[in-house]
């Protein structure tokens, strides 16, 4: 990986993020020595896994110059749908996972369709989906959590493999595949070109509508996957879960250097952004900072990261 490839590699921004991560980690480890333990690190990774999966998904959409506000609601809807298929002794485990992902993909397809064919601004289109999908989640669950799930299903949330929690494995695979897709494939390049200059992409013979729809579908699918993980972890399909998750996901991507204007950023930065948000959150928890103050800090980090980055450019 050459540092001169602006879109695929580590920018100054990402080095800055890594340094920030290391410094914050060192300070926390100094204050609370048990931060150094492997155990804590795995806990931290598991905590960020859902936000991480969502943030990777929304990165696709942000790179095309769009935005997806519906993913928090999609977490709830696909969690409910997956839970319906996860009662013990009814279907195979794979059916419930599939159901969750398909639900997310279907909603993502609608988002992409409305944005491209209907020429509705992404903010509006996905705001509508956010509201509607939340409603469907309540309808599909009758307003009550869908419980009594098989142990196989809940194992997705609580189990581990080779000593590492399964949600962390899922995030790792999602991030890796996405990195390869965005940086090494033709369609990935088209995602950057579409967001970087839609008209130039069009004039170069790229079907920009198809690329945008693809981004929303992938984003929806990953939101569905995150919904499955969420339902498994909480052992119920909750129609009211995932509130504001979309904003955390967008924040992670933006802290990681993905531009809301499109064409700039990537999965590497998004993962670093999610890590930074998670580390600061759990650090403040362990230092007994009240959650009210934590919200203030989080808000300042989102704005501060972008502010610092812009100053660096001027």
């Amino acid at each position, binding site marked *: 990986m*050459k540092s*001169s*490839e*602006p*879109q695929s590699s580590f920018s100054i921004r990402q080095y800055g993020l890594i340094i920030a991560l290391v410094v914050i980690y060192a300070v926390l480890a100094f204050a609370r020595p048990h931060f150094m333990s492997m155990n804590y690190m795995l806990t931290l990774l598991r905590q960020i896994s859902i936000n991480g999966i969502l943030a990777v998904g929304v990165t696709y959409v942000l790179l095309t110059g769009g935005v997806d506000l519906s993913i928090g609601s999609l977490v709830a809807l696909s969690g409910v749908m997956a839970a319906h298929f996860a009662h013990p002794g009814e279907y195979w485990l794979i059916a419930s996972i599939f159901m969750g992902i398909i639900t997310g993909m279907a909603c993502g397809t609608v988002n992409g369709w409305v944005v491209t064919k209907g020429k509705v601004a992404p903010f509006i289109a996905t705001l509508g989906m956010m509201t509607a999908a939340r409603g469907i989640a309540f309808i599909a669950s009758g307003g009550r959590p869908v419980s009594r799930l098989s142990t196989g299903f809940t194992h997705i949330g609580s189990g581990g493999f080779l000593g590492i929690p399964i949600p962390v494995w899922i995030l790792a695979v999602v991030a890796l595949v996405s990195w390869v897709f965005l940086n*090494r*494939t*033709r*369609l990935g*390049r*088209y995602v*950057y*070109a579409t967001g*970087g*200059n839609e*008209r*130039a*992409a*069009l*004039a*170069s*013979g*790229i*079907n920009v509508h198809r690329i945008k729809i693809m981004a929303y579908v992938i984003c929806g699918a990953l939101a569905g996957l995150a919904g499955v993980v969420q339902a498994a972890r909480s052992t119920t399909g909750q129609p009211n879960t995932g509130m504001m998750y979309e904003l955390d996901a967008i924040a992670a991507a933006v802290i990681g250097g993905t531009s809301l204007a499109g*064409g*700039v950023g990537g999965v590497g930065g998004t993962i670093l952004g999610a890590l930074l948000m998670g580390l600061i959150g759990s650090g403040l928890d362990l230092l007994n900072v009240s959650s009210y103050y934590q919200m203030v800090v989080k808000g300042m980090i989102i704005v501060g990261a972008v502010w610092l980055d812009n100053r660096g450019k001027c």
Partner: protein
Amino acid sequence: MAFLLQVQDLSKAFPGVQALDRVRLDIEPGKVHAVIGENGAGKSTLMNVLIGLHQPDDGELRFKGRTITVQNPHEALKLGISMIHQELMPLQDMTVAENIFLGREPASRWMGWLDRTAMRRDAGELLRKLDVPLSPQRRMRGLSLAEMQTVEIAKALAYQADLIIMDEPTSAISDREVERLFSAIRDLKKQGVAVVYISHKLDEIFEICDTVTVLRDGQYIGTYDIGELNIDRMISLMVGRELKETFPTGDSRRDDVVLSVSGLTRTGKFKDVSFEARRGEILGIAGLMGAGRTEVLSAIYGLEPFDAGEISVHGNPVRINHPSEAIRNGLAMVTEDRKEYGLVLNMAVKHNVTLTILRKICRAGFIDRAEEDRTADRSIRDLSIKISNRNQTAASLSGGNQQKIVLAKALLTEPEVLLLDEPTRGIDISAKAEVYKLISQLAEAGKAVVLVSSELQELLSLSDRILVMREGEITAEFEGRKATQEEIMKVAVPVAV
């Protein structure tokens, strides 16, 4: 006679171009002063300096006898210089009165309470003075272009402007509305207001203007009383430069027809456009800005729609709704605005170059990165693009090198027909010469080249044939090296009926 505005030795350079070179302009109050010149002669730059959108590099502006500097359009307005742009930008959902007083609404001192009654009254008075039957309470959205223009004029008067600049005010209005505009201008003259009038329509200039200043290639050619001029003289003043020795010569062969377009029509943009382009031929399309040339090329390439007509490649009719279909049919286009349609500026040079042919250097959807580097390097070498590193962003290059990247992208698709829209706009003279050489080589290699350019010299020297478009229609065809600029300008300039 005291001059209202005196511009002395004004110079302004942009990267790669000397847009204005010691230009002068003397304007008397109560006169209509035309500023004419070809596209790129420096008219817009000069006006933008006057209203403070550009800062001059050198020279002096004297307004009402005082030396002034204009930092921004707001200062220009306060001084009494107002401009009515070609593209009007009214606040569509506000009323006529609100638009006229935008930014300086009559309001009570305390709390800034708007005095709507006063606003309506004053706006009505201004409109009456201009003899326009227009209610101050109408919303802008419902107005015709001509009515919006009169609102702009009223706005200029509300600022008590002494100098009003009108940029192509008649380019989009009907003949009857032109008459009404002219009577408003005559009223302005009576009130002692000076008008700078920019237009390509030369017969209008004879009708309304008192004095004419001619610019050419950013230089001041002269100022004339309208009585000293006729249309032929005006045209030769505008175009009369010497042939520059930057053009390659060498006749290209004419061969079989590659691209044929018949009856291409898009309502309001172009009408019944038909032509053929042959192998090894450079077909030039001349015309003024807004003649529909870009729209025709874009329609052929699938970037913009058209309503009727047929496009054939090698005699076979093709349906092109998207640039990808054009590329598949052997067409490639270099668009007029490289920043808008040509490049993804924050992408690496090599990624820009290969964007059109990524499919060819992919295996199972994965980009063969070694092949990508080789392809990019080959293009960079072939077109002698000057870069330090194929990984640098396209934004970091000069205009000439950016333009070559856009060309490289187009050429990599191995097209049979190249549609070039202003391929040398805004690039410096040596880069231009290289692009000219390249275009000739491409034709010699058997490509059909369709070249749209506003630089007549360029068209005359490169083209085998030249079509002239005027207001959306092809009005004439010339043998490339036999035509003269004067002949072309005569059929390109719109004639107001």
